[in-house]
């Protein structure tokens, strides 16, 4: 008993003053993801990786928009989005005080324009994603001719590209025979 009383005296008060004083978090603490809409290219890698559907990507083919959205209520702060993001547009902060007075504040959204196919006019990929691929190609020391070729390919949707490729393949096949 005496030991216990000594221990109680030694320890003193164990309760932290939080929330009246800030609480100390470990470095690398996983809090709310911060999305930078400028860096984001709307590639949807995060939405595919997200285990809990907190991140979703909805495509509106009529209006030509792709909407990235994040719902705090479903987020499990696992940082998979941060791991798979090719541009560093999502980084986890250490923010954990996420209660809000208005439910709508739990959602974040960002709209991205889609590019229309040069051939069929149907929207097929986010403009920024195409720009990102082009920028990568420009950095990869291709010849000017090859680059122009790639650029024109990027303006066409995969469906039309396939259709355009068929006659080419047929002629290649005939040549081979």
């Amino acid at each position, binding site marked *: 008993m005496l030991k*216990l009383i000594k221990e*109680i005296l030694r320890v003193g008060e164990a309760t932290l003053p939080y929330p009246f004083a800030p609480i100390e978090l470990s470095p*690398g603490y*996983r809090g709310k993801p911060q999305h930078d809409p400028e860096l984001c290219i709307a590639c949807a890698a995060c939405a595919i990786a997200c*285990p809990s559907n907190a991140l979703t990507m909805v495509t509106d083919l009529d209006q030509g928009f792709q909407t990235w959205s994040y719902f705090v209520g479903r987020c*499990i702060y696992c940082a*998979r989005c941060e791991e798979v993001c090719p541009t560093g547009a999502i980084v986890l902060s250490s923010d954990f005080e996420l209660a809000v007075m208005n439910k709508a504040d739990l959602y974040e959204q960002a709209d991205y324009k889609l590019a229309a196919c040069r051939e069929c006019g149907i929207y097929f990929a986010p403009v920024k994603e195409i720009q990102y691929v082009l920028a990568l190609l420009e950095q990869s020391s291709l010849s000017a001719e090859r680059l122009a070729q790639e650029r024109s390919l990027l303006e066409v949707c995969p469906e039309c590209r396939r259709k355009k490729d068929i006659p080419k393949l047929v002629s290649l096949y005939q040549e081979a025979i």
Partner: protein
Amino acid sequence: MTLLTKERTKIGQKYVEALRTRFGNSILDESWQAPDQVTVTVELNSLPEVVEMLYYQQGGWLASVAGNDERPLNGHFAMYYILSVEGSQENNSQDAEKAYVVVRVEIPPHKPEFPAVTPKVPAAIWYEREVRDMFGLQPVGLPDERRLVLPDDWPDELYPLRKDTMDYRFRPEPTTEEETYEFIKVEGEGIVQIPLGPLHITSDEPGHFRLYVDGENIVDADYRLFYVHRGMEKLAETRLHYDQVTFLADRICGICGYAHNVAYSTSIERALGIEVPERAEYIRTILLEVERLHSHLLNLGLACHFVGFDTGFMHFFRVREKTMKMAELLTGTRKTYGMNLIGGVRRDILKDQRVKVLQWLKELRGEVTDLVGMLLETPNIVQRTLNIGRLEPQVARDYSPVGPTLRGSGFARDIRVIHPYCAYDRVPWKLTYKDGCDVLARTLIRAEEFFESVSMVERCLDGMPEGPVLTEGFKYKPYQFALGYVEAPRGEDIHWSMLGDNQKLYRWKCRASSYNNWPALRYMLRGNMISDAALIVASIDPCYSCTERVTLVDVRKKDVTIVPYKEMERYCRERKDSPLKSANFGRIKAK
């Protein structure tokens, strides 16, 4: 990526040979998933005898049973009886070959029934009830035909885990307003069954206990759980891909989630023959032991609470905070670590973290030594726990309980020793077991394991090799399957996973440790006083907020008293004012 290419030495071959000698043509097929993991397909009618032979003659323990709807693959349902076969149990010998032998049977869809194993091996009882609920496979000869997992108001012919029955989001209309579950009847005295009305769930994990009492003595006990079955297996099989399931596995349990996470990840890695980098193995071991630290401190705190030593409870929880901080420092969060992907871990442990954790471990060792000393000096503790809630070795042998519950009854059985995984065979440590068979033995084991875990984390931090922490670039192969196993703080967690052809699991059977401990609890409660019931339940360390309400049935007066769980807890601590004598609780006179 490195695949297991070296010539496999087959551990456990002799058990299969013995089966072949005795059952001959009834053994249809044999396939090896790992050097110590074999699946033997047997003829349906010989199932009970095969399992019985493995269990009682070759030192088998029932780890899990998985049902599987393999009609799209081979036209049959299948059952997998997963046994850890460990040879003779005499003198706790550690020499015999230890292997997982999985007995597989195929069940024709036009006649979905199989001979029940439970009459020969009681440990199968919950599994066979579950398989009947989830797959509609009838165990013929099962002594207990009540539902286990499905609620009373679930439609009769709807079997959730069959591949062709339902989407994971489907919620059928309730078929009844009443609870129709039949609790056991205690023979001789004619117990009246009282319907308890609609469920009243105040905690996150409710369960219903029914104690049959004669005066203050518990004659028998029955309980019903699964009120909050979450359908995680179905969710994983239909919605998540392999890496995402690791995060779901983290959420199976709020205490030992990482153990489930490792069990799941290793099951997939084993099925595909992926070799995890050694550093990742060490990191997993460290985190598993950090998890054990906080879990055992929680249970030791509760042990204080239930013997009325609440100051001790507070201090164990104060110290426990350090282990939670440790997890936060190493993983970025206090619980649901989310550290695994298939192939390794996501974060390395850096020097700063290592130094800090080592310092905290040193402090913890000192503080907990003092606290455990104070707990044992409390005059109450031995008096309240010695010879209370006895789990007789024979009952333990029959029901395959796991973890400290089993080790308290004299069995030196710990998966970390028997089937070493991660880095457990590379760091030295000492296994703890006791012969007391009572609440005291189980509590002392947890205290000793705490210190062993502290040392193990220290050794791992000092001895971990340099190198990568994640293997990438492997290919998933459809319909491969294997077991993953982890000794969680409460006993082994077993995951059986079969991969699919669409980047999703075909079947995921996860079994948490308490699942194996619940069926034996009935025998621990018998012959004890009501005032010790809460203490005994706590000694198996189940996910505890479960037991919201207890029904007492007086076998002599034929009274049924419904007591709120809080009151049972109070009685356990104070041992004054028996709830049976109190008029404050609804008492219903038998007709």
